[in-house]
């Protein structure tokens, strides 16, 4: 459970930082008046959808942190046999990086009102993501061809579980990205299109980060880090 606790410490840090700026020391029973300068509220000026996405990504982070926690817990058992991750994952990782970069390009194109570039970048992001998913399916096939079925050993089961959950999140994102694509090709640039593009980009960046962590764990590079953490705890 080390991994989830590390994530929780990070979340607590963000929440604590935010709370510390909320005048928690004020004495509301001694105050009267509208407090804030009009017409703003004291709430953040960020768009609610961005905050909603941020909270959702914290939930996604907790989900993956818990799965990695279980993985690490299971690795600790004496009978653990690591399964070699397929080489294809390298290519897939590159695809996901490309998707993320393309969407970042889309955001800057949207801000500069370059509609053509925006359309191309959105399409490239979606195609690269589809390529990533196809690559993951091929990786599953390679993995199974080497004899690692989902029921073969716990390491293989975890491989399928982790990649499947990540893939499902990409598919969910693709539904949203697909709609943004359609809107971009149909109409002109609008405030809501810029916002949707930004939301997609944030989502993809975080899912890329999640994938990089998963990649490290599946390739076995994280073992040293985990050993150090365990050494600190015991």
């Amino acid at each position, binding site marked *: 459970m080390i991994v989830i606790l590390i994530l929780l410490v990070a979340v607590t840090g963000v929440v604590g930082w935010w709370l510390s700026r909320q005048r928690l020391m004020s004495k509301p029973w001694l105050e009267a008046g509208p407090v804030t300068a009009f017409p703003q509220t004291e709430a*953040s000026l960020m768009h609610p959808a961005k905050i909603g996405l941020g909270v959702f990504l914290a939930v996604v982070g907790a989900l993956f942190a818990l799965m990695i*926690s279980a993985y690490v817990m299971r690795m600790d058992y004496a009978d653990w046999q690591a399964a070699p991750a397929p080489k294809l994952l390298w290519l897939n990782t590159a695809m996901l990086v490309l998707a993320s970069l393309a969407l970042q390009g889309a955001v800057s194109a949207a801000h500069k009102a370059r509609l053509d570039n925006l359309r191309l970048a959105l399409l490239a992001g979606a195609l690269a993501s589809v390529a990533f998913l196809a690559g993951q399916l091929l990786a599953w096939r390679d993995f199974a061809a080497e004899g690692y079925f989902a029921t073969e050993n716990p390491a293989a089961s975890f491989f399928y579980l982790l990649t499947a959950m990540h893939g499902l999140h990409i598919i969910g994102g693709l539904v949203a990205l697909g709609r943004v694509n359609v809107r971009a090709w149909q109409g002109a640039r609008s405030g809501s299109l810029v916002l949707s593009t930004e939301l997609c980009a944030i989502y993809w960046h975080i899912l890329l980060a999640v994938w990089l962590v998963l990649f490290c764990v599946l390739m076995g590079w994280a073992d040293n880090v985990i050993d150090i953490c365990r050494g600190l705890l015991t």
Partner: protein
Amino acid sequence: MVDVTPHGADFIPAAEVAEVELYHPHSWWTRYVFSQDAKVIAIQYAGTALSIGLVALVLSWLMRLKLGFPDTFASISPDMYYQFMTMHGMIMVIYLLTALFLGGFGNYLIPLMVGARDMVFPYVNMLSYWIYLLAVLVLVGSFFAPGGPTGAGWTLYPPQAITSGTPGGQDWGIILMLVSLILFIIGFTMGGLNYVVTVLQGRTRGMTLMRLPLTVWGIFTATVMALLAFPALFVACVMMLFDRAIGSSFFMPAIVEMGANPLPHDGGSPIMFQHLFWFFGHPEVYIVALPAFGIVSDLISTHARKNIFGYRMMVWAIVSIGALSFVVWAHHMYVSGMHPYFGFFFATTTLIIAIPTAIKVYNWVLTLWRGDIHLTIPMLFALSFIVTFVNGGLTGLFLGNVVVDVPLSDTMFVVAHFHMVMGVAPIMVVFGAIYHWYPKITGRMLNEAMGRFHFWVTFIGTYLIFFPMHYVGLVGVPRRYPELGDTAFVPPSVHTLNAFITVAALVVGFAQMVFLFNLLWSIRHGRPAGDNPWRATTLEWQTAGTPPPHGNFGKELPVVYRWAYDYSVPGAPEDFIAQNDPRPLTQGGPA
């Protein structure tokens, strides 16, 4: 009093009608069924939760009948008993309490109390309810599936949850249970995003965090916790579903079933499930308790006509309970075996949680101190919550210690403990809150005589059920046993007590029928309530009409000038000052 009005603000501009685009219903279907109005969604959530809760109530009667009169009810087999037990626990904890506090009260009260017109993502909010309903229907469906619902216990511990000795283990029961939970979590996440972002972004002008009613603080913190804790249950459910459906071995060790039948699994870890489950399971206790804490604070302050004592401390306590509850989960696993240092760590954190909790209890009592206490029905329920919560919490101190927990863990003492602290106490708040806000929701008061009958029978009755159960546990009667038979260590008095508890449970159950009748009867026949029958300060009582119309506040959003607890302010013309009352304060209250 400090006037915190910013300089130069000599007039207050009208609030824009719609900062968040308002959804408008066009037909009967979109107004009452597929509605995106948080108030309608709240009522849908509450209605569904109470209906499925009624099923769980009936299951508890059947269990009690078997325990109290095993010979008369020999037709209830042990398998059926386990199924009743599992479904009772699961429904009460997740599908009733969690859904009712967050989906029901959260949806109704958050937008009204923070001064918003609706949740920030109304469409997602609507989806949240329909996915919740689907989860409930899948759960109900498992009663009719071949083999019946799962009987694995509400904790669903593997390996027994998916072996053929457990009812539903190799049939549809466990699969439907897991699918239902997964759906519930997806639906809850959608709702939860709304509750959090609405509190963060939807607040009206002047409504700083420290002016929020404690109800909102409780629901808000509980939602944040639930969003971080439910993924653990989600992961556990998905992994167990893999084990059951495709034969992987996340949780299943190599095991021989029924003494002769080796299962294909190999190398899974049941302890891993326990860690995941309780990483969700312990915060879940506070996911239910924190909204109750918040609501009870508001009930006590309103009905004692006195400002809440130590508002700041209450807020800090809610937040610190929320944070601490994530590092105590393993105290549910003392009997699973662990390193003594871990046991020491988790016992310590468990006992530390008692500090913020005790602060809250002291503050409630000090709020009552020299207050103008009106013994209305919501107040009676709020007072009974304090008593019940303290009682249940004290036995928690016993069970939090490893050496005391180990002998008591598998006895009825634990059943008595968590029913007091997590069953009866929050349900008292649910009742109090329903009696308190029903006039706002329907425009009519609940019937007073039926309400008082309901309160006294429920309050005294639950003590008659659960106090004797502590003694039954202390003499060593194990929990999870459908009948005791002729066991040497069980004295005959236990059988008498069991029969007594069963009768008390049936009487309490009858009182709940009276309550449900009252809910329906008063919609038509209750006394008209007016806009603010309790003379309360918070914004939901200052709406444009009762029940509040679509958009909640008419043309202009309210502006908040003060905190939520200005009761009995010296020098004020009335004994309460609403949060949106703009009258400037002099030293002694409004001029």
